[in-house]
């Protein structure tokens, strides 16, 4: 969907890639493909099977957006008992759905495009890299880096529960630029000092529950361990 937001760029991309399968925009969708972009994460058995097929029939699989990369917001449901969740629908729908997990839980993922919504710039960067054969690498630094390069006021200083320091950069610090704390929609990066940041937040006066709530919003699956550590602390 955000794909179509690339607008005119799409037309340019089309010169180099052939879009074979795009259910939202196309009627005839073919497999196999060279590059498969998968947005979202499976929540039914059929979808898992479909994902496995896509993996088999594509050379490169790209997880597009937070849901695909970390399980995303839907992953929040993994924090609660299934029964409780089903009650909200008065026990409906009847089939027990599948926990939203990162795609990499089911299949090998070649590239991740982070963010909710994922960053167009990064998608273009990836596509460019694929076209010209350049290595595309995940950013190994935090949102703070991009925020401070823009000379913003730090939202932590203003007492906001910002997840910038542990969230993977690449969004150009979009939310902090707009005066809003980072909610961590891109998930943590490998080198993130999560415990260090939790300490900072606790020193600022946030409670355990508030911190857990904030960590779990977008990346419960990725923070699971830290969260249970924090609960026991």
């Amino acid at each position, binding site marked *: 969907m955000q794909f179509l937001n690339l607008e005119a760029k799409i037309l340019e991309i089309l010169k180099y890639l052939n*879009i074979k399968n795009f259910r939202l925009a196309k009627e005839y969708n073919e497999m196999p493909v060279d590059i498969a972009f998968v947005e979202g994460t499976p929540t039914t058995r059929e979808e898992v099977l479909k994902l496995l097929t896509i993996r088999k029939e594509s050379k490169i699989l790209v997880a597009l957006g937070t849901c695909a990369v970390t399980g995303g917001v839907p992953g929040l449901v993994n924090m609660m008992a299934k029964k409780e969740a089903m009650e909200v629908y008065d026990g409906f729908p009847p089939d027990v759905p599948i926990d939203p997990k990162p795609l990499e839980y089911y299949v090998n993922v070649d590239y991740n495009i982070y963010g909710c919504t994922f960053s167009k710039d990064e998608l273009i960067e990836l596509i460019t890299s694929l076209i010209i054969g350049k290595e595309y690498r995940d950013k190994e630094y935090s949102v703070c880096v991009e925020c401070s390069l823009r000379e913003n006021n730090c939202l932590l200083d203003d007492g906001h529960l910002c997840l910038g320091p542990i969230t993977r950069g690449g969004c150009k610090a979009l939310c902090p630029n707009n005066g809003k704390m980072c909610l961590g929609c891109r998930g943590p990066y490998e080198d993130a000092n999560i415990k260090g940041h939790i300490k900072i937040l606790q020193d600022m006066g946030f409670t355990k529950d508030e911190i857990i709530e904030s960590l779990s919003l977008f990346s419960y699956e990725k923070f699971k361990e830290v969260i249970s550590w924090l609960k026991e602390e």
Partner: protein
Amino acid sequence: MAKRRISIKEITKIEGHANLSVELEDDKIRRVIFGVHEGSRYFEAFMKGKNYMYIHELAGKVCGICTVAHELASIKAVENALEIEVPENVERIREMMLISSHIQSHILHLYFLALPDYVNAESAIEMAERDYDLVKKAFRIKEATNYMTALLGGREVQPCTLVPGGFSKRITKDVIERYIKKMKEIYPLLVETAELFSSLEYPHFERKSDYVSLYDGKSIPLYNGKIKTLHMEFEGEEYEKHFEEYVVNYSSAKRSLVGGRDYMVGALARLNINPYLREEAKDIALSYSIKFPSDRVAWINVAQAIENVHYAIEAMEIADNVKEYEPMHISPKNIDGEGISAIEAPRGLLIHHYKFKNGKCTYANIITPTAMNTENIERNLEEYLKDIAGESDEVIKKEAEKIIRAYDPCISCSVHVIRTK
């Protein structure tokens, strides 16, 4: 007995996963099933316990398309619940945001999903090969409207500037002027689009059903107003009294009726309920002998294109009158409460309903336009296919898809079911 079954496993060029199957016997329609097979995502479940600050952020993720509408509906309900005062200026700016996202959504639907059906193209990609300029024009409008939304919302989808009570960033005169400038730039293209879509040959099928939209007696409201059907008028808060819901076993989305009838929401419903189209927009329609109200289902497409012109003018007028916005710290008066909001998303009426205790959500209910439309879609299909039941499978499939696509259904939203007590 000649029985046949036509089925489309996965309807393309709509958002989300839905299937259709038509059972015929002796060229008579026996049964039409429009099924939604998308996993539930439990938003209403995990919103529980979350701080009021995060609710609209989560709501924005309900669906990847109407993020602006969902966030706005959600934040409005939160503000209602906690009695957070919202300056009128803020509401106006939010309306501007909503309008640019509406136009964006309609353009996406019109050019990329609907139009290929009418020009015999497989997809917009094929259209681009044939008529590069046409697709480019569509992209230009999309880009411009996205830009406008991003001016106010930080980014084009999932706006990140909304906070209960206002915005997190300054909205300067400069930003507003740029918004107006962009809208002026694309206005002629919107008129062209309206003309293009008014001139297409649509299925003639008509069926009487009910229509539901916001109503304020003077405009075609998007953000504020009562809910009106052909027969009733009531406040958004009373939605539970008027919508009846029920379940069908072949679909993961619940259905609903209003006053015992199936009903339609969306662009056509808006124009059918509110006879307040601006002259500029009305004239375009009239010059192609198109008049609203109308029961012609495929005219949803026309309604969207015409509506775009109307709202573009509306947005420029609003923008001319809004003031600069300075962010300020707002804290809720209450930390307990219940709030309901009803706004118009591109696909129609959208209702968010929350209860809070200690600033934490204890109950959430989201009713999306597609959920409201599914029953209507199915019944209309049944009627329409009766007329053409003698045709080949291919024709039936194609025509059915045309009707379904006209609604621009957003399947991922439809699994957010209606719950009424």
